């Protein structure tokens, strides 16, 4: 019998237990040798659009035909409502403050729930003895300054309480939006991109060979009295065969928006989470090898404090006016309540043979557990099979059931009448090394959706919707110094039915075709990149008339009964990026870049806006020749 987990890997194992997503970053993502991505604005979340399954929309990222709310966003393994400060705009994630983003478009294991795809981030870990990073970024109308300090103690020392410390890593980063300082006179644009302050920090201490203590915090504070903060503390113990961890986390979200004298959203959400996990590794069991069994649980107790007077929020299948009716308070509530969710899961993974590894697990979610509110229990089996067909070819089959509980603001107001949405996913992915330095990845998927929460004609939310999404995605990556090239494409279709008798219609962000080509060249201190994007236009619902609301002096659009029956034309654009390293040695680095969006000023119509009275349709274009300029230094 051969020990599969070598003793020196126990530290890696511990860290994986504490922060599963960080460990997955290496396993689930393509090699992280990709060059800077043109058109991403140096924003790690916007750069995810390089993946063929990700569509950037005004309401956030839509993954494989799912609504943005179907994507589970995690910070340090715990859910946050969104990683985007304003949907469709720059995120709260930075390269300087976070580890590489983990994106899982084809579902995920039983460790997580409440979504069908996953975007996970964690604060960056300090690895250098004492170092600092500084970055300045401006896009012309908005500027940001970022800084980070880190300390990675390479010399062991003795802690008074816990004994010998074998590793101690700390890093804190700060980011501030300087919009108002940069362009105080630009008026409307200024108010759209408010000044903000983000703080990210992580400290990780390893005691001896077995114990790891980790504390992290991510906070994003807008100066208009909205914020999100997620501190997390975890303790892990690991040996070669056993590992156990417990993590505690708190989420605070405050949103405050006012419009006119009547409309307001004042939302406080505080969640306390506890997450224990246990993992057992057995080298051989009943003919199976490298058997890993894990079991875990999570409780989330959330207190909501809502004071709302606002029109119905835009949601899939319910097109809304571009500006809210100042007299429409269809969504009105002033209430406080608690909600408790409980999840239990277990999974086992093993090698069935020299080239086949299987994992199977089940997750049980109790949404609304321990409360006088409605409780729904959902059982979600998930599994995967990894089969190495040849030394250069690997096949992965995965399938699973996923649930998303009602958790959006408008859903919270009628929580007792709604059930979780149901999704079943099937994915087949083939990875093949075509040639030395050339890799190909092909995926095909089918996703069945039922009990979707739809707002019906009478304005009431019901679990009446259903839908399917299916598609084929392909990615080809070629690396040959000094060149790097990547081509990704997808053919997809995503449809919905608002109720069992309704006609099938396109999903709000259905994008049947995408092509994304990236080429980069690096020589000495220069790195040049270009990216071509071609994609089908997104669906929209035509406006067939207007009703003037005289008491509120507001023009209310009348949407066609044929929801999303029209589609914007094909979109195309080219983004360019130039990076130059002034200094790059062991002691310090200094580099600058220009990221030029929409370099040939493409006039592709992204969608449509309307004149104030909807009497004229106005095309929305990507900003022409829109530069991001950044300077980054390390000492």
């Amino acid at each position, binding site marked *: 019998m051969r020990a599969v987990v070598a003793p020196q890997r126990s530290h890696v194992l511990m860290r994986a237990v504490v922060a599963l997503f960080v460990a997955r970053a290496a396993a689930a993502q393509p090699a992280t040798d990709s060059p800077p991505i043109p058109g991403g604005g140096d924003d790690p979340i916007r750069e995810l659009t390089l993946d063929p399954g990700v569509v950037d929309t*005004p309401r956030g990222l839509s993954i494989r035909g799912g609504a943005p709310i179907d994507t589970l966003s995690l910070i340090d393994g715990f859910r946050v409502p969104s990683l985007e400060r*304003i*949907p*469709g*705009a720059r995120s709260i994630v930075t390269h300087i403050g976070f580890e590489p983003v983990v994106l899982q478009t084809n579902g995920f294991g039983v460790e997580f729930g409440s979504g069908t795809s996953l975007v996970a981030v964690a604060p960056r870990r300090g690895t250098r003895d004492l170092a600092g990073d500084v970055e300045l970024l401006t896009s012309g109308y908005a500027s940001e300054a970022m800084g980070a300090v880190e300390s990675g103690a390479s010399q062991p020392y003795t802690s008074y309480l816990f004994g010998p410390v074998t590793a101690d890593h700390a890093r804190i980063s700060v980011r501030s939006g300087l919009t108002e300082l940069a362009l105080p006179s630009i008026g*409307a*644009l200024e*108010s*759209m*991109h408010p000044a903000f302050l983000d703080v990210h920090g992580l400290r990780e201490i390893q005691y001896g060979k077995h114990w790891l203590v980790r504390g992290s915090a991510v906070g994003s504070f807008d100066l208009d009295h909205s914020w999100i903060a997620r501190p997390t503390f975890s303790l892990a113990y690991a040996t070669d065969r056993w590992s156990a961890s417990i993590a505690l986390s708190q989420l605070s979200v405050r949103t405050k*928006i006012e*419009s006119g004298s009547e409309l307001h959203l004042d939302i406080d959400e505080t969640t306390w989470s506890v997450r224990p996990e246990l993992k057992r590794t057995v080298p051989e069991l009943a003919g199976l090898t490298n058997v890993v069994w894990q079991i875990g649980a999570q409780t989330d107790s959330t207190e909501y404090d809502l004071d709302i007077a606002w029109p119905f929020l*835009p949601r899939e299948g319910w097109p*809304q006016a*571009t*500006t*809210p009716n100042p007299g429409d308070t269809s969504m009105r509530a002033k209430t406080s309540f608690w909600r408790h969710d409980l999840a239990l899961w277990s999974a086992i993974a093993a090698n069935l043979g020299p080239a086949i590894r299987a994992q199977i697990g089940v997750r049980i979610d109790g949404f609304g557990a321990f409360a006088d509110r409605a409780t729904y229990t959902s059982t979600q089996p998930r599994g995967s099979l990894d089969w190495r067909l040849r030394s250069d070819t690997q096949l992965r089959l995965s399938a699973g059931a996923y649930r998303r509980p009602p958790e959006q603001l408008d859903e919270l107001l009628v929580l007792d009448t709604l059930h979780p949405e149901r999704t079943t996913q099937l994915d087949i992915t083939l990875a093949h090394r075509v040639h030395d330095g050339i890799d190909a990845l092909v995926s095909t998927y089918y996703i069945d959706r039922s009990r979707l929460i739809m707002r019906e004609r009478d304005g009431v939310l019901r679990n009446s919707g259903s839908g399917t999404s299916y598609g084929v995605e392909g990615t080809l990556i070629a690396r040959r110094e000094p060149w790097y090239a990547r081509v990704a494409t997808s053919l997809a279709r995503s449809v919905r039915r608002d109720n069992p008798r309704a006609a099938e219609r396109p999903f709000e962000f259905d994008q049947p075709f995408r092509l994304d080509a990236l080429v980069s060249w690096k020589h000495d201190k220069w790195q040049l990149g270009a990216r071509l994007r071609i994609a089908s236009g997104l669906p929209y619902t035509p406006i067939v*008339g*207007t*009703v*003037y*609301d*005289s*008491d509120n*002096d507001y*023009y*209310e659009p*009348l949407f066609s009964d044929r929801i999303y029956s029209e589609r914007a034309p094909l979109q195309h654009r080219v983004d360019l990026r130039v990076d130059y390293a002034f200094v790059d040695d062991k002691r310090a680095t200094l580099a600058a870049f220009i990221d030029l969006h929409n370099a040939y000023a493409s006039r592709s119509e*992204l*969608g449509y*806006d309307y*004149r*104030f*009275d909807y*009497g*004229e349709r*106005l*095309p*929305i*274009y*990507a*900003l*022409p020749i829109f530069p991001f300029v950044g300077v980054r230094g390390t000492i």
Partner: protein
Amino acid sequence: MKRALVLLVACTPESAPAWRLDQDRVIAVRAEPPHIAAGAIARFDALLAHADGPTTVEPPAFASSESPTLFDIVHFNIDHWEVVAPDEQRLAVERATLGLAIDAPVPLEVTLELSSGLLAKKIVWLGDSRENPIAPVVALADPLPLARDIPLSVAADGTVRWFTSCGTLRDAEAATATLRIDEPCTGEIAVVVRDGLGGVAWQVIPARAE
């Protein structure tokens, strides 16, 4: 709010501002009176703007209410549409249904179709009495001077909206706006005041600048 989100990563061409009067649309709808006691009658008229001519004041060609219990009180009477407030007993039932206080006015939303096909909504309040505000009074020089800021001002409790088909307006949603005309023109200036309780009044003034 959503408009702002879209603009953050994209742009749209300029469109005509809301204060431009020479566009086909409804500027305001008036119920006369806006609050009616049991048995009283309210009639409607609307101020319409036109792309190719001066404003007009027209009665609705059709009126209706989607209220499941009060739709029948919207009538066509000889040559006009009107609302006849129901008796106190029926109003009491409506108040109970809507969860209103015992003496609160009952809102009735009426949809109006105007002669040019434009649609508008107006709420008539049933169960109490209240008149529209007094029409604002604005005096303008004739002709108006060119290339100078011309202050426009009304005294009003509530909201004010200014419109023009001649020149440009600044602060068009304030009680005091500024008109500037750079080229000779002939058109109209309109002001609409709303008292926030359903009452509305307007004045349209011919404007000539040389």
